[in-house]
């Protein structure tokens, strides 16, 4: 028999703070986490801005030796996981360590370490390459490290679906808990790809804005949008079966009530313009609860020409004329695009919307685009009680992933 699945904790590291709460407070105050690139010299790069995580000291969350041999993307995941466990009050011991899973995905993996060691390889030869490079760069190092740090010994998987990763990790974890494979899961995403190769690569693909002004660079749904801003960070949630959560008196922040995922079968970077497969993903996510209840949509809203138009089309095709009555916002306007972590942080934000009755805005929305004509909650947060939300994520390769969350009653 299927169990109900609830969110009992979450933690985050983002360009707007190294905790979920600071990030949330900044988001609802329309703060901008995007700035000029500082973590490497980007003077010869056409792209000048990024959403970097600031004031993150890995030693606050792990011992110095672990920090040294852990890539930044996995350091973020360790921090977010520790925060999430603390938030949920979940105690991991011999009675439950095999019943808890870890599903933390990453879009890119340990590219900081890889780029550094490729440079060592080219300049000093193969015998100088660090023996730690493979564990540091592979995608599963985040989940592996989180297991070591927390003592969780259940199912452990890092999955990759580009910018849909965070939402898919949550979706799969939701299904596993729902169907009794796990009692609880730490699930989410993490990425740290603000590196020379990461920025050059996304830039050459035409995905990043070359607007050098951090205050207007990310402007989802605005007619002058011209690419996304790369961000970094991590979001991790504790998903738990309702019975276990109630039994231990856990705090319950929201219930997960649906997940849908499809693919475009179209192009390696472009979304399907009609949004047809995205509509299917939305329909799958809402098949048990219906469309009528949805009171907020956390958009993928990357600030690229193609995404924002096709996502808007998908929302309209899913909700019909009611699409105009549903607030839709993109927090990427303030954080940039945290890649594989984006969907996870957005799921946390969906919990906060339900908890606090505040919808975070889409900032920098000043020039309306006739193709994007929904209520994007421009520039200012809005107070509104919302009981049911969906969070959209789409990724290179044609991934469409949608998670539905509802107030726990």
């Amino acid at each position, binding site marked *: 028999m299927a169990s109900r699945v609830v969110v009992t904790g979450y933690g985050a590291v983002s360009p707007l703070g190294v905790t979920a709460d600071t990030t949330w407070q900044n988001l609802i105050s329309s703060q901008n986490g995007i700035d000029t690139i500082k973590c490497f010299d980007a003077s010869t790069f056409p792209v000048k801005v990024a959403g970097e995580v600031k004031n993150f000291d890995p030693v606050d969350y792990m011992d110095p030796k672990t920090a040294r041999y852990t890539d930044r993307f996995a350091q973020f995941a360790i921090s977010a996981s520790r925060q999430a466990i603390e938030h949920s009050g979940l105690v991991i011991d011999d009675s439950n360590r095999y019943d808890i899973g870890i599903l933390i995905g990453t879009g890119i993996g340990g590219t900081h370490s890889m780029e550094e060691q490729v440079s060592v390889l080219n300049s000093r030869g193969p015998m100088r390459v*660090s023996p730690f490079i493979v564990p540091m760069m592979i995608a599963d190092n985040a989940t592996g490290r989180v297991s070591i740090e927390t003592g969780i010994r259940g199912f452990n998987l890092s999955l990759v679906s580009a910018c849909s990763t965070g939402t898919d990790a949550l979706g799969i974890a939701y299904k596993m808990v729902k169907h009794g494979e796990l009692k609880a899961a730490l699930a989410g995403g993490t990425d740290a790809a603000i590196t020379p190769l990461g920025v050059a690569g996304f830039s050459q693909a035409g995905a990043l804005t070359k607007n050098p002004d951090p205050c207007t660079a990310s402007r989802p749904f605005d007619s002058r949008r011209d690419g996304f801003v790369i961000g970094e960070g991590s979001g991790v949630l504790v998903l738990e079966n309702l019975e276990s959560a109630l039994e231990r008196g856990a705090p319950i922040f929201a219930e997960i009530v649906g997940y849908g995922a499809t693919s475009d079968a179209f192009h390696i970077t472009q979304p399907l313009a009609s949004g047809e497969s995205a509509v299917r993903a939305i329909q799958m996510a809402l098949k048990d609860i219906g469309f009528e209840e949805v009171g907020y949509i956390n958009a993928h809203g990357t600030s690229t020409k193609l995404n924002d138009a096709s996502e808007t089309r998908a929302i309209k095709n899913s909700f019909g004329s009611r699409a105009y009555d549903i607030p839709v916002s993109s927090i990427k306007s303030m954080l940039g695009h945290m890649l594989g972590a984006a969907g996870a942080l957005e799921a946390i934000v969906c919990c906060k919307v339900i908890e606090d009755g505040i919808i975070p805005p889409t900032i920098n929305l000043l020039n309306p685009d006739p193709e994007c004509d929904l209520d994007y909650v421009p520039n200012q947060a809005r107070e509104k009680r919302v009981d049911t939300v969906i969070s959209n994520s789409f990724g290179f390769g044609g991934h469409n992933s949608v998670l539905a969350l509802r107030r726990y009653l």
Partner: protein
Amino acid sequence: MDIHAELKQAICKVNPGIDETKITPEATFVGDLEMDSLSMVELSLAMEDSFGVTLPDEELAKLTTVGEVAELIQSKMGA
């Protein structure tokens, strides 16, 4: 060159946060200093930088204490 001091520095570099008082000539890498095989390779790279000598993995694998490695470096440098 003070080989012991340089070696200690290399060990500290490879093991941030280590209790430096544990790094004695008698200390074993695996037991006392809690180093694994990956850290040992990392240490051999750090020692190449510090001493300018290459310490083959096969030779290093036979040695268990800090003092033994210091002797190996000494012999390589003297050669």
